[in-house]
């Protein structure tokens, strides 16, 4: 299996641990990710709110590049995933817009016919590779690790994608099958505030605090997330939340690929675990026990 890998801007900067762990996990499962050459920013939700055709054209350049090499796109960032899918849908449903965008792409010698599918790594792990294959490759079963599975808003919404829009279960199925325990976490799709953390911070802090509170109350060892922005908001602003709301949260916020990577026996350095702000003691002890075992 080969996919055109579209990391997205934040995976090359602030969330490079997501990038590392994603590549490592796919590598361990013998699934090849070819980075899409010279990809550009998808435009995120922000571009769409200023200029429509331009936003679609900027996103479509990536789709056109992927179409040229003939692979489907896989992108770990929830925002890129939504935007690229949205661009695909808008273009296919409206011929007038499709023609306009193709005229724009023509300026750069590109064209797009609408054949590329945009996928998320979680979708590929669960539905293409399959949980059975992953189970066979597990070296360290995650016995006793209590995970709050946090999907964030944009991976299963707005259109029906690879999982349910109100109660997705992909991550739960994946982690339960490799020994972990999922905690009751009704806030798994609750918005963290996204970019509002920069613009309307007090509202966003409030939302983020509720998510942390829910995970803490239900006894989670860590929160597993699929979105770079959610990870940044939940992790980077925990100190501020503790100060404002007089709380004492120290919840590790890990990417789901980092947790899966540990289970697959990948070196923690390769997963960028030391780059997270809060250590997950439980996950670390599982890893250390297995190291001692090997010796």
């Amino acid at each position, binding site marked *: 299996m080969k996919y055109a890998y579209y990391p997205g*801007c*934040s995976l*090359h*900067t*602030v*969330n*490079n*641990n997501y990038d590392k762990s994603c590549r490592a996990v796919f590598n361990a499962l013998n699934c090849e990710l070819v980075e899409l050459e*010279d*990809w*550009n*920013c998808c*435009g995120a939700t*922000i*571009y769409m*709110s*200023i*200029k*429509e*055709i*331009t936003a679609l*054209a*900027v996103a479509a*350049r990536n789709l056109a590049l992927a179409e040229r090499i003939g692979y489907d796109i896989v992108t770990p960032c929830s925002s890129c995933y939504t935007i690229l899918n949205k661009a695909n849908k*808008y273009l296919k*449903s*409206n011929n007038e*817009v499709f023609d*306009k*965008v193709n*005229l*724009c*792409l023509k*300026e*750069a010698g*590109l064209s797009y016919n609408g054949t590329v599918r945009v996928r998320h790594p979680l979708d590929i792990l669960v539905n293409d590779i399959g949980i059975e294959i992953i189970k066979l490759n597990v070296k360290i079963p995650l016995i006793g690790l209590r995970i709050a599975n946090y999907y964030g*808003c*944009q991976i299963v*919404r*707005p259109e029906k994608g690879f999982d349910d*829009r*109100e109660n997705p279960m992909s991550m739960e199925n994946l982690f339960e099958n490799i020994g972990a325990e999922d905690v009751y976490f009704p806030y798994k*799709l609750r*918005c963290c*505030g*996204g*970019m*509002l953390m*920069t*613009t*309307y911070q007090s*509202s*966003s802090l409030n*939302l983020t605090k509720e998510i942390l509170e829910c995970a803490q109350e239900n006894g989670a060892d860590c929160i597993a997330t699929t979105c770079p922005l959610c990870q940044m908001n939940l992790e*980077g*602003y925990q100190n501020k939340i503790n100060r404002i709301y007089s709380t004492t949260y120290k919840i590790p916020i890990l990417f789901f690929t980092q947790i899966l990577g540990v289970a697959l026996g990948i070196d923690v350095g390769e997963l960028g675990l*030391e*780059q*997270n*702000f809060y250590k997950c003691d439980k996950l670390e002890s599982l890893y250390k026990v297995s190291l001692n075992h090997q010796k």
Partner: protein
Amino acid sequence: MTVESEILPGVHPEKEVLLRNSFLYRTKVIPQGERIKLCIQCGTCTGSCPLSYAMDITPRKLIALFRAGDMESILRSKSIWICASCYTCQTRCPSLIKVTDILYALKRTAMEKKLFNKNIPTYALSYSFMKCIYKYGRLNEAQLILRFYLRTGLWKIINLIPLGIKLITKRRIKLTSEKIKAINDLRKIIKKAETFELPPEKEELAYIPEAVGYKAVS
């Protein structure tokens, strides 16, 4: 008040028609955007919205105001800038209205007609974002934040110093931006696309059935 400027039932003042046209033109790009006419005012959108408590006009009211013919209040509201695009309203709407995408259309209309407060930070952020992409083709968070605070008040950046230091020690910040190789191609695409962002043509303004309040709901 002269007779001409009085609001007659089923007829909108000229300014309203202009704003409505511009907005409806944008909803046409949205797949099934015309479903806005099918709102049953159930309030599921407002009830689902995690940020409705901070809005001056909630999503349900926005649609009610659209029907009542008060585009200006909608476009001047803070609500459209508070939306975090979580798509919960759009997922749950029983009439399948594309609420979040409609909010995007409203933002674009407000910007085109310059009917918003320049102090709204979301605008500064969007603008800085656009500049970054035009310059490099990719986004660098550090640069975006710097540009944003240069527009909205540099002193506020002090609050971000602890987080910034932590990110640097964890090797998670790059200060230099990655530039894509085909940046000139991307700029050509953007320039061409901007020529398509045209406001609706004048002829369309004469009469449109959607502009006539409740008559639009058959």
